[in-house]
């Protein structure tokens, strides 16, 4: 009897820019999707060996364990300042920050606004999941009105806690910002759009056009207290209306490739 011949067709593999290791992220969390998209972009652009990442404080504090490139771990909110220092003395390198909503839009508001205003030639990936994940579910600057968190147990009362911050709308007003878009990770079609935006953001940096940022609406099933699949629906039903997807600022040099 002849030995059957196996034909192997590789349709899916780990990007070289992603380490072969388990992550600490909860089941259903979209950090893993965001990580993979970034890693695919670094691979496709051939820039892994020239890239320096800056990790935040928050759930993605250990991002440096997952990316196969040089990494610094910043203080809470200070990643854009740290990235500024790195980039200015290493202008030929690609420098990106990966920050959550508490890191970027609360404690690090000054640093992100001014990095963008200076037109720092860095890329920021902004994960907006409307909650503090690492400290287990407190109100974030992007928590929606009425949303229950452990620090707004009766729902966010805007009379007491104010309103959520729409970061892309703010950052896109700054002349130094070259590319500011919001995407979502709640389904495959949107994930594909997110990847395209990440590619464009890194291209903007490679072309030296100024500050680039991709906001990604993300899920936190654990701290939202709902199953992963429902969490994706929650993004679509509650977050997308509050944080409209779209292009807030796109430098003309990359606008041609936009949808």
């Amino acid at each position, binding site marked *: 009897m002849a030995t059957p011949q196996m034909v192997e067709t590789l349709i899916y593999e780990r990007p070289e820019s992603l380490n072969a290791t388990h992550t600490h992220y909860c089941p259903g969390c979209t950090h893993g999707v965001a990580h993979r998209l970034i890693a695919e972009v670094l691979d496709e652009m051939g820039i892994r060996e020239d890239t320096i990442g800056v990790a935040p404080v928050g759930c993605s504090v250990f991002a440096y364990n997952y990316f196969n490139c040089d990494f610094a771990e910043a203080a809470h909110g200070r990643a854009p300042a740290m990235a500024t220092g790195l980039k200015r003395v290493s202008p030929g390198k690609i420098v990106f920050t990966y920050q959550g909503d508490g890191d970027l839009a609360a404690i690090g508001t000054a640093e992100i606004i001014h990095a963008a205003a*200076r037109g720092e030639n860095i890329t920021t990936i902004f994960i907006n999941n409307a909650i503090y994940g690492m400290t287990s579910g407190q109100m974030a600057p992007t928590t929606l009105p009425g949303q229950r968190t452990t620090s707004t147990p009766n729902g966010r009362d805007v009379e007491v806690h104010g309103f959520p911050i729409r970061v892309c709308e703010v950052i896109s007003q700054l002349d130094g910002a070259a590319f500011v878009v919001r995407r979502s990770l709640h389904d495959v079609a949107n994930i594909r759009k997110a990847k395209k935006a990440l590619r464009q953001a890194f291209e903007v940096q490679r072309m030296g056009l100024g500050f680039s940022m991709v906001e990604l609406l993300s899920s936190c099933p654990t701290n939202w207290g709902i199953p992963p699949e429902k969490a994706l629906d929650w993004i679509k039903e509650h977050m997308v209306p509050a944080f409209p997807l779209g292009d807030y600022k796109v430098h003309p040099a990359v606008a041609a490739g936009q949808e």
Partner: protein
Amino acid sequence: MARELLKGNVAFAEAAVRAGCEAYFGYPITPQTEALEHMAKRMPDLGRTFIQAESEVAAINMVYGAACAGVRVMSSSSSPGVSLMMEGLSYIAGSEVPVVLVDIMRGGPGLGNIAPSQGDYNQIVKGGGHGDYRPIVLAPATVQELIDLTVEAFDLAEKYRCIVIVLADGNLGQMMEPAELPAMQPVRKREERPGWALTGARGRRPNVVSSIYIDPVQEEIFNHKLMEKQARIEASEVRYRDLALEDAEIAIVAFGTAGRIAQSAVKAAREEGIRVGLMRPISLYPYPYARVKELAGHVRAMLVVEMNGGQMIEDVRLAVEGRVPISFFGRMGGMVPLPDEVLDAIRKVHAGLAQAA
């Protein structure tokens, strides 16, 4: 190099340029702003980095980022600004990247004023930020020393991969006196950045610069490493200057501007026949405990002079261990002691000794 009339703030900034400082990040604050202004002109002219940050918080984190890339980098500020930097300094200490900072101290607490003070001693010398770490702290008393110690700070920061803080005050920052600048050193070539630096993982495993050790076992191991490094610093980097201590029965201990004023008072007291000398600590960390201890075995009394309410005196007490009486003379809140006031304090100590005898 010829001696020239230099303002302290400009002198240390130019000294840093000549020591190969590749990037400066700062925020304007009196009485150190001339340093930032000097860097704003000089650094771009030389193709180097200058950024006026949005805050001292951002400035120190930019310093942190550039330090991760393995370049010589610094900031300078004054007391309230340095308070804002404490978070970043702790992270820098926890990441073991070399950083130089100059603190031109002013009157406090709070907004205080813009006059010279030594009120930051405890904050700077004992660590300042959270966690177990000590920066090397160097205290100049003249513009020349401010220049020389700034240059040395870069070498020490790289030797130990630590923070070196040059601790001066508004008097030294603002005064002009003749001094000599060092020769120009080139900046480090890109390909000569240290192996641990973040330069892109080309043909090597990725480098990570971080201050996080989530496992307490690992964090304690790291803390032991920091303690071991501090022991090496304490064994090798103590600096001080003696004046007229050979036959002294009274030893003054004073650093920086207070030390310089005390020097004048010592000369005047000697003319009155009082056998008094001065030990001026230059390294505040590592502190010259051994020298103070030695002096306590020779003299009958000590006098500590500071421009604060008595901060360094605690280190003097630690070394003296009660063997001789220690008096204190201090001015606070931006007030600078006059040599005559220090002379009076010396006379009082002297009179006390005569009474005892």
